[in-house]
């Protein structure tokens, strides 16, 4: 049976000496190499990782590991600052940039002995929903190479279609989702502003947790929208998400928006009785474009709760449909502001154009940012102009308040958890995805995840089933503010019921029988 999740299992194995941190680290590094075609990592910090693993090994040898995460290989999205390891945001602007400090979350992971393998790929500055718009190229969804997908979707000529049929990971934390999904690490950090952790988690069949705004420090996370950004957690099971959450959460004096009250890490109980639960099904999440497959899965999940004795009711979040346009204004405005610092003076790319300071700024920013970033900067500055501020920014802020109030009302009425789909459909092939521009895509893809960011609420994607094409589909649970324990407890119960299948990756199996077996045996009951 699953006891406390993967991290606890591996931790126990490490303690008992069945495997050493160095072995574990080497296996993961080797897996990263053989799955390089996924493009999940931008930077692999092999040397630093092995050094950390050795230090961890020494602690285990002395019988003094730092905690559950000691010796556990992890990956971090490349928009978190890591001292000594490049932090690029998948942008020309920060290519080669080495931060002098660790983000608080990175520091916390290291303080607990976790081994940082490297930095994962994303959309440039996390602006996107496909992990296709970064300067290092798109991330490939590991499920594209799974037996499950191949059997169902590529019955014809094998080799040729593999190139054109691979599906996207979703984004913008696609690298982290792919890294966890392909066994190259046990947990990864993402960031979540409009769904950037939950969306790729759904497409890659992993757990993706967006904690309550203010629960985890943003210090060192290169911002997209400060008022919505949250560090996200990607793991293979809900228990692991709780473990990582416990190691990251709490007040940070370097981030004034974190909660003042102390946070107590928790272990998730095994829920046996759900009869006291009130699950809300927000009708507005039955959005245009929702695939019939996901709709069916969603109602099946509702039935699952109902049959187990929980009360399931339909609820309304009437302002949901304004969420995307509201988000667009607020996001662009903050992006315009946050990106102003990239002028080529103190750090990052600097253009050779030096006729004047102004021309140098202009060229630096033109060369450093992609079209998506530049487009958002432009529209954001437009929204912030004196003559537009009232009509766009202020209005969007008011709508945001209405959206947040929708949730407040529903939760006040007694609803414990909201159950929704995470995405409209399963992952689409890359060739299809790039037919539409980033803005259209983001608009469609964020539609189900984005309101939770507006309201600052915790939400988690739980991998639920495989689609007809053999690709993962996830459902989302949204909880009350700072009620992560309740949220994850319900998610864990659900995870146990649905028995989401293990990814069957030929390439991984062939070369790395050991580590996969290890992870598999730990995660399958």
């Amino acid at each position, binding site marked *: 049976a699953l006891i406390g999740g993967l991290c606890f299992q591996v931790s126990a194995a490490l303690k008992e000496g069945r495997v050493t941190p160095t072995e574990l680290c080497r296996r993961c590094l080797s897996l990263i190499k053989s799955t390089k075609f996924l493009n999940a990592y931008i930077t692999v910090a092999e040397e630093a990782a092995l050094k950390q693993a050795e230090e961890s090994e020494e602690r285990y040898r002395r019988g003094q590991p730092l905690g559950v995460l000691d010796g556990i290989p992890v990956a971090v999205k490349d928009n*978190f*600052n890591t001292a000594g390891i490049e*932090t690029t*945001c998948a942008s020309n602007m*920060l290519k080669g940039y080495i*931060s*002098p*400090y660790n*983000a608080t979350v990175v520091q916390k992971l290291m303080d607990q002995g976790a081994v940082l393998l490297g930095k994962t790929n994303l959309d440039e500055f996390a602006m996107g929903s496909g992990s296709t718009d970064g300067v290092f190229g798109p991330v490939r969804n590991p499920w594209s190479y799974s037996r499950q997908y191949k059997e169902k979707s590529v019955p014809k000529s094998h080799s040729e279609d593999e190139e054109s049929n691979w599906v996207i990971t979703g984004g913008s934390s696609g690298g982290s989702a792919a890294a966890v999904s392909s066994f190259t690490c046990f947990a990864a950090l993402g960031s979540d502003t409009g769904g950037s952790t939950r969306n790729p988690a759904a497409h890659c069949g992993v757990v993706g947790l967006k904690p309550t705004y203010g629960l985890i420090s*943003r*210090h*060192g*996370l*290169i*911002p997209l*929208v*400060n*008022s919505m950004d949250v560090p996200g957690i990607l793991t293979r099971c809900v228990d692991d998400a709780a473990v990582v959450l416990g190691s990251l959460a709490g007040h940070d*004096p*370097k*981030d*004034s*928006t974190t909660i003042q009250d102390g946070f107590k890490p928790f272990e998730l109980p095994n829920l046996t009785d759900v009869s006291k639960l009130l699950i809300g099904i927000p009708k507005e999440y039955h959005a245009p474009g929702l695939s019939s497959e996901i709709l069916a899965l969603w109602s099946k999940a509702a039935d699952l709760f109902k049959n187990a004795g929980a009360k399931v009711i339909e609820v309304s979040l009437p302002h949901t449909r304004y969420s995307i346009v509201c988000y667009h204004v607020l996001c662009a*405005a*903050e992006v*315009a*502001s946050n*990106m*102003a*610092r*990239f*002028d080529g*003076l*103190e*750090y990052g790319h600097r253009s050779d154009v030096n006729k004047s*300071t*102004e021309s140098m*700024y202009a060229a630096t920013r033109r060369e450093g940012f992609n079209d998506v970033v530049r487009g958002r900067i432009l529209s954001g*500055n437009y929204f*912030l*102009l*004196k003559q537009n*501020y009232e009509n766009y*920014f202020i209005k969007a802020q008011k709508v945001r308040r209405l959206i947040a109030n929708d949730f407040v009302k529903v939760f006040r009425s007694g609803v414990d958890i909201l159950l929704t789909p995470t995405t409209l459909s399963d992952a689409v092939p890359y060739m299809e995805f790039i037919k539409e521009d980033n803005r259209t895509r983001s608009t469609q893809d964020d539609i189900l995840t984005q309101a939770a960011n507006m309201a600052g609420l915790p939400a988690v994607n739980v991998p639920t089933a495989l689609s007809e094409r053999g690709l993962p589909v996830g459902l989302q649970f949204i909880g009350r503010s700072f009620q992560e324990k309740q949220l994850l407890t319900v998610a864990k119960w659900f995870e146990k019921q649905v028995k989401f299948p293990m990814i069957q990756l030929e390439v991984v199996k062939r070369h790395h029988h050991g580590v996969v077996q290890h992870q598999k045996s730990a995660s399958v009951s």
Partner: protein
Amino acid sequence: AAARGCGGIWRRAWQRGAGGPTPRGQRAVACNATGGAVPAGKSGLAPWVPVVGLEIHAQISSNSKLFSGSQVQFAAPPNSLVSFFDASLPGTLPVLNRRCVEAAVMTALALNCSINKKSLFDRKHYFYADLPAGYQITQQRVPIAVNGSLSYSLCTNNKMSQMVTKTVRIKQIQLEQDSGKSLHDDTRTQTLVDLNRAGVGLMEVVMEPDMCCGEEAAAAVRELQLILQTLGSSQAVMAEGQLRVDANVSVHHPGEPYGVRTEVKNINSVRFLAKAVDYEIQRQIEELENGGTILNETRAFDSKLGCTIPMRDKEGKQDYRFMPEPNLPPLIVYDAKSLPANMNHQQVVNIDWIHERLPDLPSVKREKLVEQYGILPEHSFTLLNEEGLTEFYENVVKQTKMKPKKVIGWILNDLLSYLKQHSLTVKESPVSSFLLADLLNLLEKKEISSTAAKQVLAELWKGEGKTPLEIVREKKLELIQDQKELEQICQAVIDGQENEVIMRVLG
């Protein structure tokens, strides 16, 4: 034209500086003590009312910056006081410095402001090399304090004896970040950036346009400077840029709306402020009387030429694209009533607590001096205007039997003029309050004459470590009290100069 209040200055001929602007004709525009207009000298011309408002940036006296832990220090090696946040490294966040909030609250209380218990921070965007983040964090929507007032006094007709007290309204006080410094190297066409100052806490004090001439503006700023220094909320040394004054100047005819205003920057002393404002008023009047128009522009004061010149506009018309600062929660300050019981007192700013601990403000100090020592009000101004002079005076008074009223003459006429002549501060005075008291005691006991006392003081300035008594003995300056001895001396003198005495007598 009758010139009252600060009006005297409008009758001064305008001096042309070397290579300076066109000479300004003599003009007789005046404003009186109530700010009203006085007819101009030229016949048939409507009078002009000058209007002056001030925006003052005071650097907060604090060990560390407004939002980061870097040290604040003047003239440190370039870029030696720069934290990751100050350099705007991606991912860094502002953390508000409580000391800066306390300084602002203190200043707001001293300026009779109402304090906003909840104030907000905003981002003001513009691109400039010494603004690393591309925006300044300031308080645009809801500043920490509003609606205050500042009383200041100035003398009329250049006579210390005629002092008028006026009041200027304070619109608001806001907390904001200072920028770094750009140093333009024209020969190598490069700009060097020093970020030591970037992020230092500023209080922007906005004064309503209640002033009407340079002298008023200067007196108001001087008073503010004294208040800040008394509170310790800013060192307020203009030469070191801790107090920066921008003046908004316009002129209009009585009964008409305010004229187009210009903003005068680059003023780095109180004296230059008066000059800059008066020049600008005069310039605008001439411009308008010659049929010209005033542009809403920023002008820099050139202290060498004594005039204001248009500044090159950096980015054309600016739209600062203000936005709420999302990384800082609203700034909440408490009073005794609103302070929650479970709050950590180390982490909150309590208005009442600060109020109880406010030191005597300059106006109160002056009143006390006048009352306690019987000196004239104008003397109390002079005492407070020089740093350390009040303490010096009070120490002398304590150590001597001479009446305070008499002591003040020695302080203002002898000590102060000597210090001024030699550009010394009170602290640097070669004569300590103890020595001066010693000397005055000799005088008071009639052991020396007033003339001898001045001679002794002249010796004391040399700072040779001698006491007044030693000098008196050495120079034989004692007053002779013995009648016989005096007669003998006189006789001896006469005897020695018999011929001359005879000549005189005959003469």
